[in-house]
């Protein structure tokens, strides 16, 4: 009886402790929900959001249902379009529709705006003709009179394809796929494929940067681990100075070093190693050098923390038993540092995937990564659907790798 009461009391106590923990974590969780998770949700929704056509042209979409684009659009669609367009009161809404259609069929912007203005103009010719035409006569001729381009099926196809409130098209386009006229998923024609190449380039640059960081970071981390603790922490400060320095300061430093009249080229010319300055900036070399520099501390720190736990005696023992030092290192130290290599590489790779500032400042047009495409579509093309779809792809790749990183067991990312 007493044991039961004790167990009950313990259970109550542990429940109270969990509640207290959750209550203390709740403000942060709520804060991140509002400032971080909901905004990312907004990005994911925007990647499939397609409201313009469904909102502005409901009757046209209905009239085009079942039309496959193989023949001229059905007669009622012309009347429905004239009706839908006349019903738009607001220039902004007409503009949104025109922009949306234009992003899939160039020329649609001027076509929609001209037709809308003609239909809305009081007592204009086109307006009167469309309105006066008896339903049987059809609205085809009057619409074609306003703009003959309404005779081209491609504009109707775009309306039909975008009739649904949600669309997979941006996400498909972000991986160079599209829906064909029948609605089946097909590859983008080769001359229009861009994003897979950019995704591969992003992964390639991240892999090259990771390899560079490992090659430079591993020997240095081992040296740090063999130093006496006091000296090691002093040398570590030298590693941390660049880590703390603003990325923009470091990028400016690399520009000074790598530009065609920069210190590296001056040194190479003076040493007689090259005849003319090498192109080191605004190309892939510049991007990789600057990114390795920025991410190297993220490789050194996890390696160092793992190596500190490797007793140097192992290496000494192996060498004193007659093993060649390199061989001894490969057979004793390297296997013990696999966890550090794994976390360091994944961390650098994950961070490198999302780089935007460095390639934008020291890379050329063909060195830009996925983040650049996201920013370009958002800020320059104002095509938020495409920006968000590319962002979704980048996020998905990153989260898969992050899951792997968590599985490797070491959750602590902080240096």
């Amino acid at each position: 009886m007493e044991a039961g009461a004790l167990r009950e009391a313990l259970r109550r106590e542990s429940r109270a402790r969990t509640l207290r923990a959750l209550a203390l974590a709740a403000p942060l969780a709520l804060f991140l929900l509002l400032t971080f998770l909901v905004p990312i949700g907004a990005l994911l929704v925007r990647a499939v959001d397609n409201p313009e056509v469904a909102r502005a042209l409901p009757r046209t979409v209905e009239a085009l249902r079942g039309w496959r684009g193989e023949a001229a659009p059905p007669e009622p669609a012309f009347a429905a379009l004239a009706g839908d367009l006349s019903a738009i009161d607001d220039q902004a809404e007409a503009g949104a529709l025109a922009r949306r259609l234009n992003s899939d069929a160039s020329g649609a912007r001027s076509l929609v705006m001209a037709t809308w203005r003609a239909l809305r103009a009081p007592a204009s010719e086109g307006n009167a003709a469309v309105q006066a035409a008896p339903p049987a006569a059809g609205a085809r001729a009057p619409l074609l009179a306003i703009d003959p381009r309404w005779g081209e099926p491609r504009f109707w196809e775009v309306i039909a394809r975008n009739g649904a409130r949600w669309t997979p098209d941006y996400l498909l386009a972000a991986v160079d796929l599209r829906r064909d006229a029948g609605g089946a998923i097909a590859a983008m024609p080769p001359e229009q494929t861009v994003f897979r190449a950019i995704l591969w380039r992003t992964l390639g640059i991240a892999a090259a940067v990771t390899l560079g960081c490992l090659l430079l970071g591993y020997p240095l981390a081992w040296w740090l681990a063999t130093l006496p603790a006091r000296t090691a922490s002093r040398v570590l400060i030298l590693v941390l100075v660049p880590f703390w320095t603003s990325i923009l300061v470091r990028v400016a430093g690399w520009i000074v070093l790598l530009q065609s009249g920069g210190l590296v080229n001056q040194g190479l010319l003076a040493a007689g190693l090259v005849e003319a300055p090498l192109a080191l900036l605004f190309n892939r070399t510049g991007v990789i050098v600057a990114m390795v520099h920025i991410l190297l501390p993220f490789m050194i720190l996890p390696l160092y923390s793992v190596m500190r736990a490797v007793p140097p005696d192992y290496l000494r023992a192996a060498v004193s038993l007659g093993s060649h030092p390199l061989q001894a290192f490969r057979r004793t130290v390297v296997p013990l540092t696999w966890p550090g290599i794994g976390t360091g590489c994944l961390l650098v790779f994950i961070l490198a995937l999302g780089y935007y500032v460095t390639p934008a400042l020291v890379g050329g047009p063909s060195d830009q990564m996925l983040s650049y495409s996201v920013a370009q579509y958002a800020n320059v093309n104002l095509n938020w659907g495409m920006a968000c779809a590319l962002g979704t792809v980048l996020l998905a790749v990153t989260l898969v790798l992050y899951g792997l990183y968590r599985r490797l067991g070491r959750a602590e990312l902080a240096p």
Partner: protein
Amino acid sequence: MSRAPHLGTAERAGLLAWKALCLAVIAFLLAPVVVIVPLSFSSSSFLAYPVPGWSLRWYGEVFESAEWARAFRNSFIVAPAATLLATVLGTLAATGLARARFPGKGMLMSLLIAPMVVPIVVVATGTYLFFARAGLADSYAALILVHAALGTPFVLTTVSATLQGFDTNLVRASLGLGAPPLATFARVTLPLIAPGVAAGALLAFATSFDEVVVTLFLAGPSQATLPRQMFTGIRENITPAIAAVATLLIVFTTGLMLALEWLRGRRTG
């Protein structure tokens, strides 16, 4: 292992090469930071060596420029505000979660440190869409909130790590002697974890102080921060004024870093 009399010449050469490589890597790490400093005192208009003469004109230019003044002011509005928010929220959550065990804790922790991992351009695009709809685009509020969100994982992980070495008996003793929980937190827990809290706050500050992508999306011209101003400067018109600002930033962030190292020493020692 540096003194190993049995090593042959080849091995000695190998050791020497390895040490040379390590020094070269350290030089590589320091080079871009070091080369920028002398150029800030250059009298030339070009950000390049050799320096024809020395002058303080670029510092004068930076201090007299309204744009740089605004950038300095904005950075010192946004970063401290974001740091305060991140530190309070992160410390509370870390103390709550430190010794709690419940199903889903791993998931919750992953979510709470996600701002460290999600690509910054994804955060920037999402927050722009969200805050623009809320009417908060081009505002300090949105910038501070998002920068705070980016800083919270650093506070959470640093304070959590400090709490792992924390003796809970002290809290039990304080509570057992009749101190209310809040007083116990303020007078027992907080002083003991203060170095960890301060270290987390410094990392959160550095995160906001160096952030440029979210700022590019969310801030209007009147909220341009230092990194934002430098980004534009490097892109459009790179002069030794950039080096002057860079030098000021190097001095400032090195100070922050030394402060952090000192705090680390106190925490472990």
